[in-house]
């Protein structure tokens, strides 16, 4: 609590002094997102101020959007703002390389007769499909859990190292000279199962984005298929739409 400095001889109200010293240390990065702050009663006891003063200081920080109160748990530094992604302009790359994010490959295998991927990709059960499972971490929190299905007939001898530096879109184009012409993405809301919740460091039944993506070539063949689960607390999806409307959203 050494970051709270109070000068009782100052004319500045005590609650402002407390609030300002906490804010200053948040801005300097000494107090990080998620860090628990002292209780109002402990501030009151140590600095010999009333609990009302301490409460007012926290009210001020909550109002400024720097602190979050969790009932029954306490007050926490809340500096994390969700990443806002504009689907109209960033859709091809957002889920692969985002600023400050890191992709971790969890598994890589070649399978036949996958109950879900084969029908979606219009493949015969005997056809091979590469299945990659990845997690993308931003600000030390899992942002997406992704499963990528790539038909081996389009990407023979696929190497897992490819995904270190290239997006799937780039791999299809640069490594295999395929020509993705269209991407169809479907967004659905879902309550997380316990397995998925564990992957995303969330709780079972928490709401999440379920996103399916399919890349098509000129011949309407499906070149790749992704399934992605994302944490809505960390990600906001934005769309700008132009044009005349009859009664659009009204």
């Amino acid at each position, binding site marked *: 609590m050494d970051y709270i400095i109070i000068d009782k001889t100052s004319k500045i109200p005590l609650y402002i002094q407390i609030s300002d010293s906490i804010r200053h240390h948040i801005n300097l990065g000494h107090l990080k997102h998620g860090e628990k702050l002292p209780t109002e009663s402990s501030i009151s006891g140590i600095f010999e101020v009333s609990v009302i003063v301490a409460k007012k200081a926290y009210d001020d920080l909550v109002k400024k959007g720097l602190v979050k109160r969790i009932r029954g748990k306490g007050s926490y530094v809340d500096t994390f703002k969700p990443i806002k992604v504009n689907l109209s302009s960033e*859709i091809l790359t957002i889920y692969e390389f985002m600023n400050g994010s890191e992709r971790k490959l969890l598994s890589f295998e070649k399978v036949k007769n996958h109950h879900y991927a084969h029908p979606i990709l219009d493949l015969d059960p005997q056809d091979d499909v590469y299945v990659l499972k990845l997690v993308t971490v931003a600000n030390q929190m899992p942002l997406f859990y992704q499963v990528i299905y790539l038909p081996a007939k389009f990407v023979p001898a696929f190497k897992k190292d490819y995904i270190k530096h290239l997006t799937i879109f780039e791999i299809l184009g640069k490594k295999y000279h395929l020509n993705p012409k269209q991407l169809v993405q479907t967004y659905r*809301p879902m309550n997380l199962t316990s397995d998925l919740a564990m992957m995303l460091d969330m709780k079972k*039944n928490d709401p*999440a984005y379920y996103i399916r993506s399919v890349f098509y070539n000129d011949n309407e063949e499906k070149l790749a298929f992704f399934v992605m689960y994302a944490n*809505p607390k960390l990600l906001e999806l934005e*769309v700008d739409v132009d044009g*005349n*409307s009859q009664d*659009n959203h*009204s």
Partner: protein
Amino acid sequence: MEILKTITVDKRSKISPQDQIFMFLFKHILSHDLNYHEVLPAPDALAKHLDVAIFEVEHAYHLLSIHKFIDLVDDQYIVTYIEIENLLLSSMMTINDSIKALHKTPSMKLVYAKKIQPDQSFFDRSSYLTNESIYEIKRIFYADAKVIGVMSNYISLTRFPDFIKHFSETRTLYELFSSAYKLHMTRSNRILKAISLSPSEAALLNDKPHTATFKTFSKLYDQYHRMISYAEFITSNDFAYTFKINI
């Protein structure tokens, strides 16, 4: 349901009966041969028809459920896959047109239209100023008899002081703004979030509390780039948004 009469299982195949059932249903749901809200046979009935064990059908249904293609509602398995290209979110398609695209009849019901006193968080997300007087119009949209979403439109009476005089239950806001103010909605900025339904939201959507749904936060702009309406739209859990992007 006609298509279900053609389902068969080849017991000599290397592919398990459950995978054959899954693949048959999956393909026909994707191709819309099995339509949104079509009822599938009960697992025991289909198992009997195919002469397979019930667990084979149950497993196929389970796989379809976890990928949100079907859902168990009131002890019936129904198709919940309703994806339509460029649905609503990514185009200036109207809610009513998106419902018509599902071959359903659109309708709406006014829940209320009244002046409200929003909290600070509302002003933060809407970009309205805290001293503006806000009028909320809350309506339920239906596809046939089923609730598809609940929309709240927020209008500033500070910007449109005689708005209430022009408003009627049956009139769309487009018509109202166009005829009363000669303003046209030409651009929309939308934020999509997955949320957990509150008990009051769940009651309006005839759904269970804590069910995951999408909430869209939309700012609508006129031909002069001024925000003329802010809206929040909660859709039912089986509502999906599809983007089709030409690269």
